[in-house]
Structure formats: structure tokens, C-alpha cells
């Protein structure tokens, strides 16, 4: 089922902004298919849609600062036979229009690709109103709405292609925090399919989005200490790859989840709920708890222990718990 590959070499990799891929891929899709339209909320620039607008001025709909309208209009465009990519800053798209996402997109089955820009704590200094950390919890609770958290350029491209071809709506987080390429070409990208980035036998770290490279760094450091860490990536937070996660619980006996999201309801909660019912093992959930203090994104990741060092600590803790 899963795709196992050898770990990437431990050299500092160049980092990339996935928003570039978003713009390129969406524009390419628009060239291929005249039904593809973009919808935004006074966010042409911040959604990286300037090039799209220049090429397809009629196919970029800007509803202004009006997120409920944004998602409702998106659903209507889908009903009218188009394929809307609705793009806005993550917190406002998901929180502000949550009921439109539920009723107009998911429950009505209107195929709208909801693109949450600059998610997690990318807008660090702008504060908790601008952090998109609740999005995974909120949207995981909505039925019939896959939740996709791509990690790097290749996975962002795969996510956009998948969303375009999918039957129904989905939520797509577009990373802003610059990340290296860590997902091997050809890795699976499908609902319920995890990617095994590194084999290991003592503990499994499941990471998503911008934090995957940090999980790999931690695994390398732990290997030097003699601890064998399996690293999984689950680009679909919903639906989760239950089989691979349960196998990891059984085979390694301990789990750590890592996400740039709140601990209540995101990846960690999804994994914990699954594992506790079918294969209970010690777990540590790394994520964001509480509203963040003021600071830039790098500072805040550090503050919440969302670093290779934080992951390394969590692995030691979970192994200590597993021994008792």
C-alpha cells in the first residue's frame, strides 16, 4: 500500500514557497479546461493570482472582502457547471464561511476547491486572528469534505491535480512557510494513502505540512542515538490512512504526531481516536495549544516546540511511557 523510500541525504536543502506552484498549476489547469475559475476575496496578490488574472481576466472573480459570499458564490459557480478554486487566507476562508462550507459545498455536494492560503502560523506577527490552526479541526468535522495538507512543491502540485479531478469539494492548505522538497516523486497521493518517508522500528512520527522536514531531521538525529524512527506523512488528514497508521502502532508500539494546528481535533486527535479504539499505544501530540503570543512564524514554531528538537524530546517521552 505505502511507498517506502530511502531517507534523503542530510544536507541543508534549499527551501521553496509552494504558493508559486499553486499559481502555476492553477493557471495550467485553466489553459487545459475552460471550466476552471478562481474566486477570491480582495486577495488577488496574497493568493498569488495576479498572473492568472492577467491571462484570464474574466475567469478571476473577486467578491471583495466578503468570505461568506465568496464560498456561496463558489458553490453557485460549481452548480453552474464550472470548477471553482476558491482562494483566501486560511482563517477567514474556513472560519468565516464555515457554514457555507458545510451546507453549500459539502452537504450540497458542490465541487468547490477551497484553498486556504498562508495556513498554520505563517502570519505569525499578525496574531491569532490570522493564524489558521483551527481549520483542520473545523473541517475534519464536516462530512464529505476531504482535508488535504500538502508538504512541499510536488505534493502541492499533486493535491491541486487531485482536487481538480475529484468528484466533490475538498479543503486544500497551501503552505506559505518555505519548505524543502522532501516527498519523493511518485509518492502516492490519494485519500487514505500515507507516504512512508523512513522505515523504523522503535517509534513512528506522523507529520504533515511544513513540519515534515523537521520530523525527518529529528529521525536522523535519533538514529545517531540508536533509536529507529519510522516517519509517515499523511497528506490526507481526512480520510486518514487507517491501515498504515494502525500497522505503525502495532509494529513500533509508540506514536508521535506533528502538525501546525491546534491539538483539539486535528491530525493528532484523528490518529489518537483511531489508535485508542483499535490498537492503543503511548502517544505524544505536538501542535499548538492556546492562542499564540506575538511573534513571527519561526519564533512561534520554536515556542510551541514544533522543531526537530521538540520532536526529538517527544520521541524520548513517548518511549519512556512505552517502557512503563
Amino acid at each position, binding site marked *: 500500500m505505502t511507498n517506502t523510500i530511502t531517507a534523503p541525504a542530510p544536507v541543508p536543502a534549499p527551501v521553496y514557497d509552494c504558493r508559486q506552484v499553486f499559481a502555476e498549476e492553477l493557471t495550467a489547469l485553466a489553459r487545459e479546461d475552460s471550466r476552471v475559475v478562481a474566486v477570491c476575496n480582495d486577495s488577488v496578490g496574497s493568493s498569488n493570482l495576479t498572473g492568472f488574472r492577467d491571462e484570464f481576466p474574466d475567469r478571476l472573480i*473577486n467578491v471583495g472582502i466578503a468570505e461568506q459570499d465568496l464560498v456561496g458564490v463558489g458553490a453557485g459557480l460549481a452548480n453552474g457547471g464550472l470548477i471553482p478554486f476558491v482562494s483566501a487566507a486560511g482563517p477567514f476562508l474556513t472560519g468565516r464561511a464555515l457554514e457555507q462550507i458545510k451546507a453549500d459545498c459539502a452537504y450540497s455536494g458542490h465541487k468547490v476547491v477551497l484553498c486556504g492560503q498562508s495556513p498554520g502560523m505563517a502570519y505569525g506577527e499578525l496574531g491569532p486572528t490570522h493564524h489558521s490552526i483551527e481549520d483542520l479541526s473545523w473541517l475534519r468535522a464536516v462530512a464529505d469534505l476531504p482535508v488535504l495538507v500538502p508538504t512541499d512543491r510536488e505534493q502541492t502540485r499533486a493535491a491541486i491535480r487531485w482536487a481538480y479531478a475529484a468528484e466533490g469539494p475538498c479543503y486544500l492548505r497551501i503552505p506559505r512557510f518555505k519548505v524543502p522538497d522532501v516527498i519523493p516523486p511518485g509518492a502516492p497521493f490519494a485519500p487514505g494513502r500515507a507516504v512512508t518517508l523512513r522505515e523504523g522500528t522503535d517509534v513512528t512520527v506522523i507529520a504533515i505540512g511544513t513540519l515534515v522536514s523537521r520530523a525527518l531531521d529529528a529521525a536522523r538525529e535519533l538514529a545517531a542515538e540508536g533509536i529507529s524512527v519510522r516517519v509517515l506523512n499523511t497528506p490526507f488528514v481526512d480520510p486518514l490512512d487507517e491501515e498504515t497508521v494502525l500497522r505503525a502502532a502495532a509494529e513500533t508500539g509508540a506514536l508521535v504526531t506533528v502538525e501546525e494546528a491546534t491539538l483539539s481535533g486535528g491530525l493528532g486527535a484523528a490518529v489518537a481516536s483511531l489508535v485508542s479504539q483499535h490498537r492503543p499505544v503511548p502517544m505524544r501530540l505536538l501542535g499548538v495549544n492556546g492562542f499564540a503570543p506575538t511573534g513571527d512564524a519561526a519564533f512561534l514554531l520554536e515556542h510551541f516546540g514544533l522543531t526537530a528538537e521538540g520532536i526529538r524530546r517527544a520521541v524520548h517521552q513517548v518511549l519512556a511511557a512505552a517502557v512503563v
Partner: protein
Amino acid sequence: MLTADPAAAARYRDLRKATRDGGADETLEVLRAMSTDIRLRIVTMIDRSQLGHIGGDLSVTDILVTLFGAVLDVDPEHPHDPGRDRFILSKGHCAAALYSTLSHCGYFPDAELDTFMAPLSALNGHPNRRKVPGVETNTGPLGHGFPVAVGTALAARLRGENRRTVVVLGDGEMQEGSNWEAAMTAGHYGLTSLTAVVDRNRLQQGARTEDTKTLEPLADKWTAFGWEARRVDGHDHAQLLAAFAPSATGRPVAVIADTVKGKGVSFMEDRVEWHHKVPDQQQVHAAIEELSR
């Protein structure tokens, strides 16, 4: 929570005495000096933080200065006095303008401004009422401050208090539906103690408001929702002062303040990119030079 700067608060008391008891000319002179000071603080803050929304900060300055300098009944040393007037900056991205005004009035020491958006600072990119005295409610997502202002004005009525509530909205922000829901509620209840000010600078984040989503005829919209609309030059303190006179019609008052985004710095004025562009060193010097003239 930051705490008041007693010396600055005392200066503010003198300033209020001057604008209340002095002649019209003196009032305007005091307000103009305060506007200059606030604009200089904004530029300096954004230069330090290398982040911020300078265009909207400079357009809303004279509105904030008129309110805090001459209209609102507030005491920076007692920021939670139950009888205080309530001020809400709904366009919360313009926190730098609000912080500069609050520190000028003595709500907290000026030195705090240097920490704007720095790690662990109280001065977040968007105002936080749990950390900054003078902030009545947390804003940042557009379309939140106005309904909260309606609620606080309703509370005043229910408690028999004759304090007033003033909310400042961005014109782009008027595209949010929640604002029109709030306008309808306030109109329905005839909340005369409520004043909504629209900072009508005709620009939003990515483009001109009228090219994004038409707002005009804006005054007619307010009137249709049961408000008294007053249209003024939002950089003219005298006109603003007149516009903040209490309502005599039994209706809430909407002040549509025509402003210029980036006001006071010629190369920023009415240019969309200065929504949140950060000036380089040369531009900072030019801005300070122009503003100090």
C-alpha cells in the same frame, strides 16, 4: 496587560482641557499637532517592525485624533471605568495608528511602541484587549467590530447610561455582510448613542473599492438602513468635530469620512501598494521630513 504612563496621561488631561475649554482655533491647533505626532510615530513603528498597514494607518489618523483628542470621554489611567465611552477600531489591521494614539494619550508608555510585532510584545499586529488598555475588543478579521459596537451601545441603553460608542470601519470592510446586519440592528433599535465612521479612502488591499465591489451610493445605503448619514472631509478636524455632534434625529449617525490612503506622505498617497508595503530607509527619511514640515 500594559499599564498607564502617568506623565503622558497628565499631558493628555491638559490637552483635553485645551480642546474642551479653549477657542475653536486652539482646539484645531492642538488636534493638528497631535495628528503630526501620531503620523510620525506610525512611520517610526513600521520602520522598526518592518511590517504593518501604513496606508490605512495614515488615512485614519485624523479620525482617531479628533475622537481621542476632543470627543471621547475616556481616562487612560482608568481604562476600564464602566462609564467610559467605548471606541472600537473595526479595521484592526490599522493597529499601529491605534497604538500610537493610545500611547500618546497615556494608556501605556511610548517605549512600548518600539516592540510593535516583536516576539512576546503586547503590541500584536492586530489589537488585543487582553494586553492593551484602551482596546475594547479584538479585531483583525474584518466585519467584527461593528456588531460588537452595536452590542455595547445596546448595553448602554439597557443600563440607562448616556455614554457613547464609536466604531471606525474601513470602506473595503463595508463589503462584509456582518456590517450590514449590524447596521440594520442599530437602525431598528434607533441607537442614537452609536456613531459609525467609515474611513472612505477608496482603496482596499488589492485595488480601488469601486473597481472591486461598488460601495456607492454609500450615504444612501446608510440612510436606507435607518441611519443619519454625514459626509465630511476626514482630514479636516473642524468638519470631523461637527460630524461627531450628537444625533438630533433619534437615529444612529454614520460619518462617511472622505480620506486619502497614505495621507501626509506624498509618494504613498492614494497608491494601492502602500496598503502594507514597508518603506525603505530613504523613504522613511523622506516621510519623516515631509510629515515634520
